[in-house]
């Protein structure tokens, strides 16, 4: 099969199975297009969301981790070599502005259909936010703290890992939170690159009259975003206890 036809084929697969399932036993509220949510259908079909949800979590987690690893490494590099800062900011900025669907289609001839393509695209989107927040966090470390650390005999590496990064943690985690939440949203498009996820349940081949399905999938995505955010918030608060104590 020709690779550039794959996304549509994938959507077709999703849609076919959905319609198949739907036509097998039509519930009363399902036929009534004025109803926003069909509880009977939801009760019967909740099980079909399990696999897409897990896939979605996996996509987000891997993409953000990969994005973080790259952005963090770039930030540390740019922290040492200041001349790298403008080009890196520009490069990550360009990646951030590419429309998601276009990104998938651009990657398909290279990486083919599947999770890798999705992870590459999603990770690319997180770079800008994580990179910029890390740089901001490092830049916000007060000059006097850095001066004192140096004067006390910490090496550059020790200053980075023991002083600058711990102090930049709030900004870094804030960047991770934004990146994660937006990745949960963008990952719903993964289905167009054959990456699975909750998008499978949302893009159902133009059947927009039946909304229950979309509401459930969207709701799961929102809950997932909130859960990720709360977990990261917890990490942030744990890593910056000193800040809250000081505010009392």
């Amino acid at each position, binding site marked *: 099969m020709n690779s550039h036809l794959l996304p549509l084929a994938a959507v077709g697969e999703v849609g076919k199975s959905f319609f198949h399932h739907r036509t097998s036993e039509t519930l009363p509220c399902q036929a009534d297009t004025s109803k926003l949510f069909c509880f009977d259908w939801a009760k019967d079909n909740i099980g079909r969301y399990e696999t897409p949800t897990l896939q979605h979590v996996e996509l987000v987690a891997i993409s953000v981790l990969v994005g973080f690893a790259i952005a963090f490494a770039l930030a540390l590099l740019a922290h040492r070599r200041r001349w790298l800062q403008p080009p890196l900011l520009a490069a990550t900025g360009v990646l951030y502005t590419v429309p998601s669907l276009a990104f998938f289609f651009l990657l398909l001839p290279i990486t083919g259909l599947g999770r890798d393509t999705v992870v590459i695209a999603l990770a690319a989107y997180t770079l800008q936010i994580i990179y910029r927040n890390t740089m901001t966090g490092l830049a916000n470390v007060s000059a*006097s*703290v*850095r001066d004192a650390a140096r004067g*006390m*005999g910490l090496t550059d590496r*020790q200053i980075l890992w023991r002083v600058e990064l711990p102090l930049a943690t709030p900004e870094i985690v804030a960047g991770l939170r934004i990146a994660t939440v937006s990745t949960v949203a963008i990952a719903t498009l993964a289905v167009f690159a054959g990456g699975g996820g909750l998008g499978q349940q949302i893009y159902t081949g133009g059947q927009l009259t039946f909304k229950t399905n979309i509401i459930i999938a969207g709701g799961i995505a929102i809950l997932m975003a909130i859960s990720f955010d709360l977990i990261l918030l917890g990490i942030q608060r744990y890593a910056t206890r000193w800040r809250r104590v000081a505010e*009392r």
Partner: protein
Amino acid sequence: MPTPEVTEEVSSTGASAVRYENATKRYGDSAEAAVERLNLEVPAGEVCVLVGPSGCGKTTAMRLVNRTVELSEGDVLIGGESVRKRDPARLRREIGYVIQQVGLFPHRTVAENIGAVPQLLGWKKDRIRARTVELLELIGLDPELGERYPAQLSGGQQQRVGVARALAADPLVMLMDEPFGAIDPISRERLQNEFLRLQAEIRKTVLFVTHDIDEAIKMGDRIAVMRKGGHVAQYATPAELLMAPADEFVEDFVGADRALKRLALMRVSDIDLWEAPLAHVGQATAEVRAKLRDAEVPYPLLVDAERRPLGWLSERDLSAETVPARPDNPLGPLLDRDDVMRDALADLLQGEAQYAAVVDHQGRIAGVLSVEIISEFLASPKAKAEERGAVERPRE
């Protein structure tokens, strides 16, 4: 009396002399050096204040010692050893470093901040803990504050912790860059006094940078007045600097009120006091009047059996047959022989009194001080000679 050099409580292994040898710092290709051919010797255990207008290179000169600024030419020797030969990070762990903005690590507790250098040096945990407690006590903070974060402390407490952190690994030399510059005047004076008391115990070699000549006079055993390019205009003890400024620049910098500043270096006991005509309760007033005839002070001072002053007798008091128990005039300002002269003058002026009784440690009368004595002293050429013998700094 224990010797002032060593105390039993504070473990301190000593101090090293610091010597600048043609030390030069040039930034880039700039024609003018920030510090040019600086030669300066700071004896071990002394406080050397680098003072001068902003941009004179004093901070740069100080930073050459721990290599936070690298030498362009020349050398700096600590205890005879060139800093050039040392690994900068290792060198810095042996040198205490205190800066104006303190620079405590906000994400570390007070105890962790103080223990930072010992930790770098690989001390055992128990030893670091013991040292931290020792230092917190030394700077007058409750050891329980060790669990707090820096932001929970006042500015003055933070600066004390900054000093403790610099002292933690018992450095041979301390660098202090305007350490009390960002603190309100009242706390600053207290911190200065505390540091002087501390220094009297630990006797570190201290390079102290300030732009405030009053602070320099107060803190320094020696003062290097610097002008642009890190040139030393004069290097002298505070008293010498005030008595004999080397040139116009130093004279200007020291200020027109240097006569008053000299008073800050003296104590009441350093000056010849007047003798008070003393009177006791029940003494015949005729006897007191006879005393008054030759006295420098025109009023008799009533004292008790222990010669402790009670008050001044007025003309009306003396009109009676014997000296009354209650004098007409209150005692007014009462000074101690160890009071700093400047404070004594302030007391006199504030009490709107012409004369003030001076007492010794037991509270017995030692003499009388007047504004007249002070002004005569400052005007007389003899003051020079007197002051030579009286350069010991006031300590609280």
